[in-house]
C-alpha cells in the first residue's frame, strides 16, 4: 500500500526540493550520472591543420604548446599518429568513419562520404550517448550534416561565427562550398582590392569593418576567418563549449572541430610576434616535385605566424581543460585532443592539401586524457585517425564494426600492437568519387620505414611514378630518400601498396 506523507515529512521533502534547485547545473548532472565505463562521456576536440611537427609536445624546438606539455603528464601521448588524408575532407571523414578515403570515398573537395556511412560513423555507433557536434569548418560541417540524424545536438556553422553569412547558409545550404566561393569572389575586396561586384562590395567592405573594428584590436593580423567573412574567435567557441558540456545530459559524445590553427594565422595579441625574433631556422630541405615554388624566406615567415597561432590554440585548450578539471568533468570524460591533417612549410610547399605526403602534413597529434589517469604514457607504435572509432567502441564494450579499418589504440587494445601493421594515408583528391584511383598519393608506414608512392600526376609526365622511402625513425626530417639504395625494402612496401590499390579499386573498375 502506498504510504501517505505526513505534514513533517512533506515539509522536509519540500525543503530538500528547494535546496536541489539551488545546486548548480553541472554538479547536478554529475551526481545524476553513475560513474562507470558505460556512462563516461567522450569529448573529441579537433584543431584543424595542427601538425605534430610544430608542437613542442613532440619535440619541436619552439615552445608552441607549453600548456599541453604540462597537461600531457596525465595523458596518453601518441608520437606517430597519422591522418587519413592531407586536408579536411579525407582527414575528418577518416576520423569520423574509421575508414580510409578509398573506402569512405570523401576525397574530392567538400564531398560527402559514400551513402552507407550515414550508418557507419562515430555518432551512429554510440546511440546511448547524447551526441552533439559543431565545427567552424564548412568541409567538416558537410559530414555533420550528412550524419545529422544521429546528432541530436548538431549546431550549424554560423552558431559561432561573429558575422555569419546567414543569407548564404539559409538559401544555399545544399551547395555551400560553391555558393561561399562565389560570394567571396563577388564581395571580397579586402586583400586583392577587387571583386565581381562593382558597388555592393564597397558597401559590404565598410559594413564588415564597422562590425569588427571593436574586436580587431585583440587580433593584430586581423580576426580569424573562413570563407571571406565568417569571422570567429576561438575563445567564444571554448566559452560556448564549456557551457554546453555542463548543461546537457550525460553521458555525451561531443565532436568539436575548431579552425585554429588553420590559415589565416591571425593569432591573438598576447601570442603575436612571440617567435618573430627567436632566430629559429628550420632545416633547409630540397624542393619537392609538387613544389609551389614558395621561397624558404616566405615559408619561414608563414611558419612563425602559424607557430604563434598554435600558442593561441594552446591557451584556449588549457582554459577548457582547467574548466573541466575544476568541475570534475575530467573524472568521467574521455578527452581526445587531435587534428584532421597537418601543415607544411618546407620543400617549396605551403599549407596542406598537397599531393606530397611528408611528415608535417600527415603526422598529427593525438593525446587522450583518460579519466583518472595521473601519469603520462607515450605510444611510439604507428597509429592512425581511423583507430579512434574502434577505440571508442572498445571503451564501451561494443564489438568493433566489421566495416571499420582501424584497430583499437594501444594501450587500450587487449592485444599487443602489431609492429608490422600496414598503416596508410591516402590523397586521391582529383579522382572521380566512384572511379578507380588513377592519380593519387599513397603512403605506407611499416615498422621504421615510410614509403610514399605518387602516380598519375601531370608533374610526373615523362618521369613515371615517384617513389620515396624514408627511415622515419633515424631520419625524421626525411632528408634522404632511401629508395635508390634500399630498393628491396622499397619494392616490398611498394608491392603492398600496389596490391592494396588493386583490392580497393576492384569495386570501381
Amino acid at each position, binding site marked *: 500500500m502506498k504510504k501517505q506523507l505526513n505534514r513533517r515529512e512533506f515539509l522536509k521533502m519540500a525543503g530538500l526540493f528547494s535546496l536541489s534547485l539551488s545546486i548548480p547545473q553541472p554538479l547536478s548532472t554529475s551526481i545524476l550520472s553513475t560513474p562507470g565505463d558505460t556512462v563516461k562521456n567522450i569529448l573529441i576536440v579537433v584543431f584543424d591543420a595542427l601538425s605534430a611537427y610544430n608542437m613542442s609536445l613532440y619535440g619541436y624546438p619552439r615552445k608552441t604548446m607549453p600548456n599541453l606539455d604540462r597537461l600531457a603528464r596525465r595523458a596518453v601521448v601518441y608520437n606517430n599518429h597519422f591522418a587519413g588524408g592531407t586536408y579536411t575532407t579525407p582527414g575528418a571523414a577518416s576520423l569520423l568513419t574509421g575508414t580510409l578515403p578509398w573506402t569512405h570515398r570523401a576525397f*574530392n*573537395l*567538400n564531398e*560527402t562520404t559514400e551513402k552507407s556511412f550515414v550508418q557507419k560513423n562515430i555518432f551512429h555507433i554510440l546511440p546511448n550517448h547524447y551526441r552533439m557536434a559543431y565545427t567552424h569548418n564548412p568541409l567538416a560541417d558537410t559530414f555533420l550534416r550528412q550524419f545529422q540524424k544521429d546528432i541530436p545536438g548538431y549546431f550549424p556553422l554560423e552558431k559561432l561565427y561573429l558575422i555569419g553569412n546567414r543569407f548564404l547558409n539559409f538559401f*544555399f*545550404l*545544399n*551547395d555551400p*562550398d*560553391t*555558393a561561399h*566561393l*562565389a*560570394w567571396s*569572389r*563577388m564581395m571580397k*575586396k579586402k586583400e*586583392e*582590392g*577587387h*571583386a*565581381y*561586384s*562593382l*558597388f*555592393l562590395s*564597397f558597401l559590404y567592405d565598410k559594413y564588415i569593418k564597422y562590425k569588427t573594428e571593436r574586436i580587431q584590436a585583440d587580433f593584430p593580423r586581423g580576426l580569424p576567418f573562413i570563407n571571406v567573412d565568417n569571422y570567429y574567435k576561438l575563445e567564444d567557441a571554448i566559452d560556448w563549449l564549456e557551457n554546453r558540456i555542463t548543461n546537457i545530459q550525460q553521458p555525451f559524445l561531443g565532436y568539436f572541430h575548431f579552425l585554429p590553427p588553420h590559415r589565416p594565422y591571425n593569432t591573438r595579441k598576447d601570442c603575436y610576434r612571440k617567435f618573430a625574433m627567436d632566430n629559429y631556422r628550420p632545416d633547409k630541405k630540397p624542393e619537392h616535385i609538387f613544389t609551389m615554388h614558395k621561397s624558404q624566406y616566405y615559408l619561414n615567415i608563414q611558419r612563425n605566424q602559424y607557430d604563434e597561432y598554435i600558442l593561441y590554440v594552446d591557451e584556449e585548450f588549457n582554459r577548457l581543460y582547467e574548466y573541466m578539471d575544476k568541475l570534475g568533468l575530467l573524472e568521467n570524460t574521455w578527452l581526445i585532443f587531435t587534428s584532421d591533417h597537418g601543415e607544411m612549410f618546407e620543400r617549396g610547399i605551403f599549407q596542406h592539401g598537397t599531393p606530397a605526403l611528408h611528415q608535417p602534413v600527415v603526422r598529427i597529434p593525438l593525446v587522450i586524457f583518460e579519466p583518472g589517469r595521473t601519469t603520462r604514457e607515450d605510444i611510439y607504435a604507428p597509429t592512425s585517425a581511423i583507430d579512434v572509432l574502434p577505440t571508442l567502441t572498445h571503451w564501451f564494450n561494443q564489438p568493433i564494426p566489421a566495416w571499420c579499418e582501424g584497430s583499437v589504440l594501444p594501450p587500450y587494445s587487449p592485444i599487443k600492437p602489431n609492429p608490422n601493421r600496414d598503416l596508410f594515408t591516402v590523397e586521391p583528391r582529383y579522382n572521380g568519387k566512384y572511379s578507380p584511383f588513377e592519380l593519387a598519393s599513397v603512403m605506407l608506414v611499416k615498422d621504421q620505414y615510410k614509403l610514399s608512392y605518387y602516380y598519375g600526376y601531370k608533374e610526373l609526365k615523362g618521369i613515371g611514378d615517384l617513389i620515396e622511402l624514408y627511415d622515419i625513425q633515424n631520419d625524421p626530417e626525411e632528408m634522404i630518400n632511401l629508395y635508390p639504395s634500399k630498393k628491396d625494402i622499397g619494392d616490398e612496401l611498394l608491392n603492398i601498396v600496389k596490391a592494396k590499390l588493386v583490392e580497393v579499386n576492384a569495386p570501381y573498375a
Partner: protein
Amino acid sequence: MATYDKFPGYSKQAMWSLFLIVAFPIHVWAFILYFRDITWITERTNYWNAIGVGAYALLFALLESIVVFMIVFLFGLLFPKRWPEEKRIALLGIFYMLIALMAITGQLYFLLGAPFQEMTTRLLAATGHPVRALYVITLTPIALLAMVSVYMVIKSPKATQFVKKIFERLSLLTSIYIVFDIIGIFIVIFRNIQNILK
C-alpha cells in the same frame, strides 16, 4: 479612368531601359573577373563547380543590378517632370555610367597591380594633404566630364539622341546577359536540388 502603367514620371519601357543600362557595367565587370578566375576554380575542384560559381556570380549580379536600379530610379525622381522622358533617362544613364567608371577604375588599379610611381607619391606628399590632393586629381576630370555631358544632353537634342542610341545598343547586349542570369538561376536551383538528392 486612372491608369497605373506609369510610375511617377516614367513609363515601363523607360524603366526597363534604365534597368538594362544599370545592369550593363555590373555584368561586364562580373564577367571579366569570372573569366579570369575560371581556370583556378576548375583546378580547385572541377568544371561543374566552376560553372556553379559563374551561375552564382550572375545571380548576385542580377540582385546587385536590381538594388542599384532602385537607387538610380529614386534619384531620377528628383529630375523635373517637364523634361522629356528620354532626356531624363539619358542624364541618369550618364551619371550612372560615370559612377560605374569610377568604381571600375578604383578596382582596376588593384587588379592591374599599378602602384604609384615614386615621383607621384613624392608630389602628393609635397602637397601636405596627399589624400585630399588625390581626391582632387581623380574627381576633377570626372566632374568635368559629367558637367560637359550633362550640359550637352540638356542643351542639344542631337546629343540626347546620340546618348539614347548608345544606350539602346548597350541594352541589347545587356538583354543577353539577363538571359544568362536566368540560366544561372536555373543552374543554382539545380545544384541545390541535386545536392539534396545525393
